[in-house]
């Protein structure tokens, strides 16, 4: 039961990690773009 619980709930944890990683990269690139006077896209 514990193994199944971990199996089901591990995925949302990984998803949260990926969201954090992408958001951090986006914010850092947006700041860098502002500093250099370049558009984000």
């Amino acid at each position, binding site marked *: *039961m*514990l193994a*199944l*619980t971990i*199996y*089901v*709930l591990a*995925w*949302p*944890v*990984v*998803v*949260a990690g*990926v*969201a954090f*990683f*992408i*958001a*951090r*990269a*986006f*914010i*850092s*690139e*947006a700041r860098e*773009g*502002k500093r250099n*006077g*370049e*558009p*984000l*896209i």
Partner: protein
Amino acid sequence: MNNPETVGFSALVIILLLVLFYGGTFLVSTKIGQKNENADGYMTAGNKIGFGISAASMTATWIWASSMYASASSGYTYGISGPIHYGLWGALMILFIYPFGKRIRKVAPKAHTLAEVMHARHGRSSQLMLAGSNVVGSVISLMSNFIAGGVLISMLSPFNFIQGVLAVAGGVLLYTLWSGFRASVLTDFMQVMAMLGAVAIIVPFIFFAAGFPAAFETGAGNLTAQQSNFFSSDAFLNQGAPYIAAVLAYAIGNQTIAQRLFAVREDLIKPTFITATIGYGAMVIGVGMLGVLALYLGFEPTGGDQNNIIPEMAMSYLPGILLALFFIMIIGALSSTADSDLAALSSIMMADVYGQNVAGKKKANPKTMLLVGRMTMIVATVVAVCLASLQLNILDLLVFVGALWGALVFPVLASFYWKKVTNKAFTTAVLVALVVFIPVRFELIPMTGFTAVIIELLAILGIGIVLGLMSFGFFGLRVAIIVGTMATLVAAPFCFGFLRDYTTLSASLVAYSVSTLICYFMSFRSKMDFDFSVIAERAGDFDPVEEIVVSATKGAARSNDSNNSERNE
């Protein structure tokens, strides 16, 4: 078991949620809108997108509403390993494509579509075959996302299916039409954040609200032995294996992926693809777990339609505010793919049809190209809405198109590495593979006796070719030949007399093997000695250099103005 009571939304709440979502994305898209967009920016955003946006966009594009529904359906049908056999293979395909992506980008750094590169490599017939298959795939994908939106809105609110389809189609077109691909990738970031955030909250919430982990014990009797087995052969043979064969083809045949490949900064291709692999896999498998939970609960989707599992689980166990988040998650998933499809279709019509074949590369007018791109988006939306109203079986169509693309994989990839591949070999290989694929896929020929043995032989070769191609990208030709040969030899004793019962899988594999064999045997003696360096010259920017510089300068000025005004505030 009796399903719990479900909740929905009033018309006003749905309208507010749609206005919030599409209004928000539209506002964001206006921030990057330029009065005079340039054609190359409209198609690939200048080939220099950063990691944050590109990883978000690649993830968002690969995830669509159908992938979530299908993963849950796989969990419900095949048990605990079901979502893995949907999500893991799909995710790994993103990973397996990236070495090819690096090569494609090296050969054609400024291209807009794969078909455009095929024009530079081979000529018109190869280009139009690839472009045609891209168009069919994107229209089907667009239609299926509109259908998913219509079904969801009609399920959660008093609005009917057609009203839901029109709301989604209008919303997506609203924010994509003016800035094209640039709007698509920027809004993908917001959409993927909403999707990932929603999964991180909703799946654990439903898990506990539905009485898990205790329900794992009380509901264990609802699972068969195969469904309880993590190494279920049923799940692998019926779900995983056909998907492995189809998804490699998806990555090659789908212009939405190629477009992002050409848009991201070249040194960021690897981290972008790796992040998208993990993001896609975790998200789709995570949502698929709702299907596994439904199976343990003995949950019965309305009308036996497994596409209802996710919405009905959400309506049964989520409170209003989280149901709204769920609604945004699904709308975000389908909109991010739909806007990518619109951008892909417009690029194909701009670069492949108008740019290369109507006006010609040197005479193409960037302003006319933009008009062509925008008109394409409007026409494609109207066509997809009309097709959506027919409510065709989406998954059948997709499996068909995915397998169809299998015929293109080897000829396309070989064209980027092997100097001897000719236009004649490419075209013949694809056409003959299709001629063999269709009767096998639709069981128009009896799968018995000698015919079945030949089909199985080709399918077994197809297994070796798929695995060989995957290995080739990472490890080169020698390892690919060893892996391909070993896979064929190992599979042969198990597959003769067996594959004939799995025509979907066999047909996909046959498409791979026939196109590979013909392309190889028509090319290996050819005297063609293609110079890959000419592709970069033939498939480059359409806008004049000065216009691109002016456009970039305006963007920078706009950014500076924005900085200054923020500082002043």
